């Protein structure tokens, strides 16, 4: 089957029930999306499929219809996306392991809502676990990314 990831088309020969996460990580070597729980409970594996945030650990690759974007496709160290830049500005990451998923989730959410309230942020982000407890800075970074996206 063919899979388009970060603008590049890949031929993959795997069982259709293999979760997208493991196709990305072990077959294609795209390791930005992380394995945290495997049951859609933590959000560490979040990627975009046609712009929608999906838990790639629980999405069989055979069901993927659309273009996949991972954290690597969102922006790079040399050219960060506004959300990533806000994450750096607010020094969000501690261990950092959850942050690919946090950023991908936030980016999809901010594409829909560039002026979120605290309650909107809590709603949108409560599926993403951070054991280091970086939540106060995630809130701040989302607000600052939102302001950038609004051009404020």
């Amino acid at each position: 089957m063919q899979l388009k990831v970060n603008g590049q088309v890949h031929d993959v020969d795997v069982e259709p029930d293999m979760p997208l996460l493991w196709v990305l990580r072990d077959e294609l070597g795209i390791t930005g999306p992380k394995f945290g729980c495997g049951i859609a409970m933590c959000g560490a594996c979040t990627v975009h499929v046609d712009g929608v945030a999906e838990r790639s650990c629980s999405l069989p690759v055979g069901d993927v219809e659309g273009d996949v974007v991972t954290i690597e496709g969102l922006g790079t160290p040399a050219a960060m996306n506004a959300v990533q830049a806000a994450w750096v500005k607010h020094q969000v990451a501690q261990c950092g392991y959850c942050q690919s998923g946090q950023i991908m989730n936030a980016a999809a959410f901010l594409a829909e809502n560039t002026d979120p309230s605290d309650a909107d942020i809590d709603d949108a982000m409560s599926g993403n676990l951070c054991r280091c407890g970086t939540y106060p800075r995630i809130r701040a970074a989302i607000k600052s990314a939102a302001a950038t996206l609004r051009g404020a």
Partner: protein
Amino acid sequence: MGKLKTIARRTFLIGSAGIVGGVVFGYWKYKTPYDNPLRAGLDEGASALTPYVKIDENGVTIITPRAEMGQGVHTTLAAMVAEELDVAFDEIKVEHGPASSAYYNEVALADGLPFAPTDRSWLAETVRAAVAIPAKLIGMQATGGSSTTPDGYEKMRKAGAAARLVLIEAAAQKLDVDAGTLKTKNGAVITPSGDRHSYESLAVVAAGIEPPADPPLKPQSEWRYLGKSMPRVDAVAKSTGTAEYSIDVRLSEMLYATVKMNPRLGGAMTAYDDSAAKEMRGYVKTIDIGGGIAVIADNTWRAFEAAKAVECTWADAPYPPSTEAIFATVEASFTDEQRDNRLTDIGDVDAALDGAVHIEAEYRVPILAHATMEPMNAVAWLRDGKLDIWAGNQFPTKAKEDGAAIAGIDPEQVSVHTTYLGGGFGRRVELDFIQYAVQVAKETDGKPVKVTWSREEDMCHDFYRPPAIARFRGAVEDGTPNAYDGKIASPSVLEAMSGRLGLPTAGPDKLIVDGAYGQPYAITNYRITGYRAPPSIPISSWRSVGASYNGFFHESFMDELAHAAETDPLEMRLRLINHDASRKVLEAVGEMSSWGGPLAAGKGRGVAFTLSFNVPTAEVIEVSMTEEGLKVDKAWIAADVGTALDPSILEAQLSSGLIYGLTAAIQGEITLEDGEVQQTNFHDYDGLRINQTPEIAVSVLENGDRITGIGEPGTPPAPAALANAIFAATGQRIRELPLNKHLDFV
């Protein structure tokens, strides 16, 4: 003490040595028996040098030999060196460096001694200084105990200062001028006429110059990095998916594996049947690794699926098989035979309580898992008598030893690559996941293999925070406690860890009472006794160790005494406190939270204070009762770190510690049935979510007399501050964690 000090001092001699195209700076060790971690490429005679700074044509690299698990140590350790070396912070590179006993951690050991943390007496200080020698002999390169900052504070700055002086001398020799006329600026030596000679261009000459043994350090008033919030060296990588954890390591021809161990921890495997797995795509093979299996495949998911298909027969648990049975062993430990220590014993508690009206209470806390965000994993590659290990771990020297023993090769032939850790919290001091990976690597015909645990395997095979029970008696007089008697029983984490390390386990384990003993309250009759419960399930250090439960025990009972004395709990503590830095954090947190100010109906505030890891930490939490349950609205933290090196990292760590403590307080609980852990994943062992997290304000004070680390002290007061706030809001005194067994939370 003079003599001990001299010996300890000699361990800090600084050396330099040439490497290809450059120079390294670091410490020579006292009568060193250690291997040089950068042996390759070093001159003869330079073999005992441990580098902290490496300069070659590629620039300046600072070696930060402690695990970066989120606490920001790579940034702070690098800032220590950069401050003295005079380099631009955004131009340096930072590496964890190899496993080496030369990077021993003396502060972690000194903190294991049974002296009250406020005890600055001659005896306590002498013994602490003496520990520098055994720590080195044991050669532990460990990260934990909030020890990285105090341990590195002198070593790292001196390495930077010595390197800078050598580079100046190198420029003087090269240019044939007097060193006194030269200055440095941002990675270069500057001549009086303003010419710039980069450190890189001087590195080869510098390699031939003997560095000063005891270079002077900058006065604090001249710091430009330390004391400031520095951009974390890992921030960009961790925001772009490019930071490498061991789970991300990729090597050519690498195989993928997972393990499935007896769910009755440490129990044997009596049989297994892998016939179904053999039919599965990508399956390579199943190996008996003792107590369980490893399944090798060509992809992690295929290894997970194949492992599920292997039928294993498990033997019984080598410990009481249920939560109730384990707690029964703790309950039965309040005996004279099992008395372990009595490190606070002031006045005569028995006489004061005898016949007096007094209150009694029993508290308990459950077993807890670490649940780091990155499940346990490691990559091992054994070929041609050499072993390479990639693992996020808190104990590289032990990883090296274990790897060598399992592979049957010399430790010289083992390289440990410590990647970023996707969380540690004490879990990655234990190296079972590395041991398994090396066992698997023996069966792959020289191919590298990555062994990743499923979340379920990780949750059910932790080295847990032990259960604990506390029994209190206390009496008040004229609005003040005049007797406080605390008895705390728990299995010994020190015994468990020392046993696994082959170290002696004799002597008292102060970890049982950490955070309860030596608290700076002037109570006339004050006694804290620790009881050692028998070992049961595997246990280890869990963020703040004994203080993680003693903060809850001690400070909840203080609140009960304040209530009995009909006095304000913060005022009462302020009246009792006899340690200046501690008083100031309580005052600060009172001010920040407008303590005593008006509160709407259904709201309550609670306060708690714990002195742990030499950091006095006070926290206030504000809650409200809502239709959906109790909500944690706000939290305030004030902590004294002696010298604040990086305000942004300190704020992040204190908040992180508080949130970790709140998770445990509200909902953390591991239970066992038939010897098996019942919780398997984040649906039944969840961490606090963003919508449950209060607004947090942090204040960092600097009145203490020594520099301290901050990875743990934010955790201990949090559960008590919350439980005390619940009492203030509802009148309900909850003496057992997790609180959600007794109350609904939003």
